[in-house]
């Protein structure tokens, strides 16, 4: 991995282990830390692919009419952009990278419960991603259904939809196995003395996430399988010309895919809940409230899927019920925001790149979440459903939320993972550009949506051009910032200052061991007596 780790202390997980050297040593290692890094590398690559597709889309939308790509290509692009971002980047995202790396350490374990299964999930992830990438080429061209694969279009379209659906199906398995692994790890492998309510909050959020992964993913699995069967045998589950019911497809799809958005955001919330106390040197405010709200999000989040279908012709009673439940699920998120801010009160706040990303997470999450309320309200949803307002909402909450939490996490744990410090100054410059680019890119989309610009439009009416133009400019500012950030991280991983064991004065267990962590994490069995955030 990092080339010259000779300078780092010997015996770290980066050193050779097992009988294989180099790449092979990584590909066969069941060490949870190495698997975390493997995921990190893959996700970074796929993120850049997805982002490039997004960039090309913005280029095309710079002006009305056809500029660089034709409509079919555009439709393929947003589909693949969505599939990559959702199934390959943000769903595994934090859980697979930082969950794998830090969950065992934070609960004082030497590895996850099933290390081999863990490596196996990574391979499944790789296979699934490979299939997804394959769906781009050959056959009848890239899938063009949108990441939601709505029937009956997904059944009629003769592009490589089957391949893309298969990819999502396979990726689902990887997600399930990771979740299963985490649940058992948390139940069985906590250190002596670490009772449930002494467990740090990132593991807690992973625990809630894992249950969603385990209990929601199978439903989309079977649904996608049915789509494949439908495309192969023309059965008629969802195809109305054969008596099927397209709305049933939407139900099944969103039964998973709404909980899936909480798979994305819960670990992000967990990360933020770790970072804020550390940088404020304060005990987290309302530990139990945060735990309960994580569980509540996981539970209630399962019941609100219909808010994606308010205009689908669902029964009026359902629309009301789903709208109601949608508003209920906003409460635990609100509680978390209040607790984060309360934790800063009378703290001793250290502002650096990590913390700036964290604060922008909170800010953007609020915007994304609050606009979610307008989407959840029946009257207003009718107007903005399937417009750029929705696009803005979910980019704010997925990219601005989960994405920024990812950036925060990678800066926060960077010294621990690679044993070196990142460059603070460059980091801050990168953050400023990323943040302003982000706002410029996505904020105009709210306005566009309110004006009535539908999403998944290759071309648009002239009245929407101003908004699109500003937004496209923002896209290029953003990528510039991202390049700075990635450059800073890559350079620091090789050349940065050596990191001490606990650069931020954190309290959780990962800061008690050397950076980078030794192979077996802890020399002796860990015994926990204190609360995870007992700052003095």
């Amino acid at each position, binding site marked *: 991995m990092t080339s010259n780790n000779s300078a780092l202390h010997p015996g770290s997980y980066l050193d050779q282990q097992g009988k294989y050297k180099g790449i092979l040593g990584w590909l066969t290692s069941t060490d949870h830390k190495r698997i975390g890094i493997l995921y990190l590398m893959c996700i970074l690559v796929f993120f850049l692919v997805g982002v490039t597709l997004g960039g090309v889309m913005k280029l095309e939308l710079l002006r009305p009419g056809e500029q660089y790509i034709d409509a079919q290509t555009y439709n393929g692009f947003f589909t693949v952009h969505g599939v990559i971002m959702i199934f390959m980047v943000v769903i595994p995202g934090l859980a697979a990278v930082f969950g794998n790396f830090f969950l065992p350490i934070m609960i004082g374990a030497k590895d996850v419960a099933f290390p081999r299964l863990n490596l196996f999930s990574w391979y499944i992830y790789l296979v699934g991603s490979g299939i997804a990438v394959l769906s781009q080429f050959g056959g009848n061209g890239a899938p063009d259904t949108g990441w939601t694969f709505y029937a009956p279009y997904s059944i009629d379209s003769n592009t490589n939809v089957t391949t893309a659906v298969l990819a999502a199906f396979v990726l689902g398995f990887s997600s399930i196995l990771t979740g299963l692994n985490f649940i058992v790890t948390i*139940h069985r492998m906590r250190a002596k003395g670490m009772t449930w309510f002494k467990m740090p909050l990132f593991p807690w959020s992973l625990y809630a996430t894992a249950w969603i992964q385990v209990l929601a993913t199978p439903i989309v699995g079977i649904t996608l399988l049915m789509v494949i069967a439908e495309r192969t045998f023309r059965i008629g589950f969802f195809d109305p010309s054969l008596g099927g019911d397209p709305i049933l497809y939407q*139900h099944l799809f969103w039964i998973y895919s709404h909980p899936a958005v909480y798979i994305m955001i819960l670990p992000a919330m967990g990360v933020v809940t770790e970072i804020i106390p550390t940088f404020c040197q304060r005990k987290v405010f309302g530990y139990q409230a945060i735990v309960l709200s994580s569980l509540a999000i996981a539970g209630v989040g399962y*019941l609100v899927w*219909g808010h994606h279908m308010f205009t689908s012709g*669902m029964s009026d009673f359902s629309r009301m019920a789903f709208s109601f439940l949608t508003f209920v699920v906003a409460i635990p998120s609100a509680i978390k925001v209040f607790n984060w801010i309360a934790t800063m009160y009378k703290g001793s706040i250290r502002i650096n790149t990590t913390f700036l990303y964290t604060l922008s997470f909170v800010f953007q999450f609020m915007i994304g979440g609050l606009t979610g309320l307008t989407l959840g309200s029946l009257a207003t949803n009718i107007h903005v459903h399937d417009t750029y307002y929705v696009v803005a909402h979910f980019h704010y909450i997925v990219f601005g939320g989960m994405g920024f939490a990812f950036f925060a996490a990678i800066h926060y744990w960077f010294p621990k993972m690679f044993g070196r410090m990142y460059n603070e100054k460059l980091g801050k410059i990168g953050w400023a550009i990323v943040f302003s680019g982000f706002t410029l890119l996505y904020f105009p989309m709210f306005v566009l949506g309110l004006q009535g610009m539908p999403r998944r439009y290759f071309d648009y009416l002239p009245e929407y051009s101003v908004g699109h133009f500003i937004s496209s400019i923002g896209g290029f500012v953003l990528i510039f910032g991202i390049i700075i950030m990635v450059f800073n991280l890559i350079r620091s991983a090789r050349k940065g200052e050596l990191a001490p064991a606990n650069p931020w004065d954190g309290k959780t267990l990962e800061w008690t061991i050397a950076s980078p962590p030794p192979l077996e994490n802890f020399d002796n069995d860990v015994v926990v007596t204190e609360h995870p955030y007992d700052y003095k």
Partner: protein
Amino acid sequence: MQHENTHITSYRAHGVILVLLLFLTAITITVTWFDAGSLSVGVAMFVASIKASLVLLYFMHLKFDQLVFKVFAAVAFLLLAVVFIITFFDYLFR
């Protein structure tokens, strides 16, 4: 040490459960001979649920397992039920 408080189910108990299960199967089949209509599905599902509970509790040992497993199973089944109910909010009120 691993199985400190393992519960050993006797062969006889297993046999009794099997007889019960077979008996319940016979009931569902005979019920369908008598009356059709929506009632028979209700009865069939009710009996099937009893059978499932027997399998879960005795064959799958849930009754003698630790509390976590019972809670897990309860959550999973509850969730499935709720998903059914909520989906039918749509189909029943259309």
